[in-house]
């Protein structure tokens, strides 16, 4: 599988990364280099193998469905690039 310029643009849009048109050919080449190298996994016979999501020793633990944290909006907002009162500020999304 080889990426065309339109796919590079589509992936960048999905990833919410702005890509200048001039960068597309270089990115396309780099990504295709990596993906071409990854193709070697097609040699492996994975018939009947269950996928492994992680190496954790045990199943994820359960806990009571209760509030365990929170109640400090100032700490949460302390690193906000822009805030208005107790809210994160973003450009208008509804006119």
């Amino acid at each position, binding site marked *: 599988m080889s990426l065309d310029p339109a796919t590079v643009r589509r992936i960048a849009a999905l990833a919410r990364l702005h890509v200048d048109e001039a960068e597309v050919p270089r990115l396309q080449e780099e990504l295709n*280099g*990596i993906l071409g190298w990854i193709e*070697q*996994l097609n040699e492996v016979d994975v018939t009947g193998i269950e996928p492994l999501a992680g190496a954790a*020793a045990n199943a994820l633990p359960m806990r009571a469905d209760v509030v365990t944290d929170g109640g400090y909006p100032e700490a949460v907002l302390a*690193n906000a690039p822009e805030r208005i009162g107790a809210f994160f500020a973003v450009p208008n*999304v509804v006119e």
Partner: protein
Amino acid sequence: MSLTDLTIAAAADGLRRGDFTARALTEAHLAVIAAENPRLNAFITVTEAAALARADAADRALAAGTARPLAGIPLAIKDLFCTEGVRTTAGSRILGNFIPPYESTVTRRLLDDGAVFLGKANLDEFAMGSSNMTSAFGPVANPHRRRQDPDAVLVPGGSSGGSAAAVAAGLAMGATGTDTGGSIRQPAAFCGIVGIKPSYGRCSRWGVVAFASSLDHPGPVARTVEDCAILLGSMAGHDPRDSTSADVPVPDYRAACRRGVKGLRIGVPREYRAEGMAGEIEALWARGVARLREAGAEVVDVSLPHTKYGLATYYIIAPAEASSNLARYDGVRFGFRAAGRGDLRELYEHSRAEGFGAEVRRRILIGTYVLSAGYYDAYYLRAQKVRALIKRDFDEVFRGVDALLTPTAPSAAFAQGEKMDDPVTMYLNDVFTVPADLAGVPAMSVPAGRDADGLPLGLQVIGRSFDEATVFAVGAALEGMG
């Protein structure tokens, strides 16, 4: 001997004997930082005042007889661990001004044990790299130099390059690192120090800036195997705030260092004998085998058949998880925001494009692609199946041996700017370290010799899951070869 040459074990004894104060020990390290950091760039942030205040508190505890095990020991903290009130950048412009309102579990445990934090160590951006060249705060210099070419500035390895360089050059007695594909072990090997990536779940990931959550392993680097044992003993332990943290007892690793290897069976995996392996690395490996045999271990050839697929598997899974974890950097809640950009979507796209460096953007794009509709099965699901086969290789081989011995990296440290031609060449650095991350088994790099240029080389000891104790025993038996 200068205070900055001491091991952690010797310094802890010296503090208790009253040979020197914690303040003197911290001041000695701050003086080396002031002299050497402009050249090495191992620290992004130095917290001098806080370090001295902690040292004074350690002196009071020592005088009162209430000192904890790491009281007054000066450490560097990889700038991927959130530290309350102290800027934590992950080596990225996008977190350039981020001040965490909380402390990571691992650093909290070290503080509770009395450690002094000197500052935050440089790293590859978001821990993505093997050279420390991708940091937004500039590259780190390896304190070692080539005998034949002393002007070349060598990389310290990565991603924990600042941690390893700081410890190797006496700017800190030990440091925290993280290892996702080799980021503790490869820089330890390049800088001639010891580093251990413990089992997955041994050290909490809570408060560590996430790269690839199923692969991220916090762990220590230090100048001796015993010092790593002391640090890991403090860092390890169950944490309910990390759902993958293991609720298993932490043994006495320091005692394990003195256990010896008599009667142990050590496997030498033939697949690590990569084609074109440098003769010096092969000879180093043979010397390690001889050393363990002399110490009473039995060494046998073993096979890990899927080793060669480890790197490609890693370069699907790690970017996939990274693309998800790094979605949180949106220019809204914390971190960098691009100036003057139209609507919300443009704000996201420009903040991320300007805030992330080239390697991070590349991995986000790869990860997004392999998870996208139509490609998920072909790439991501297949990689998860190959990961299961790699783990099965380890499970099977550990039925017959207690630990494995391999080289840590395919070469000694290279120069800044080398291996930068294409991403895959850089990725090949991690060929021997990645499988242990995929399987979650503990692995240590121990300095074991020098190449013809006088540069350090490391050997890797891999153990059974949650059997770091045997890894420490084998590592201690190898120590002092070089």
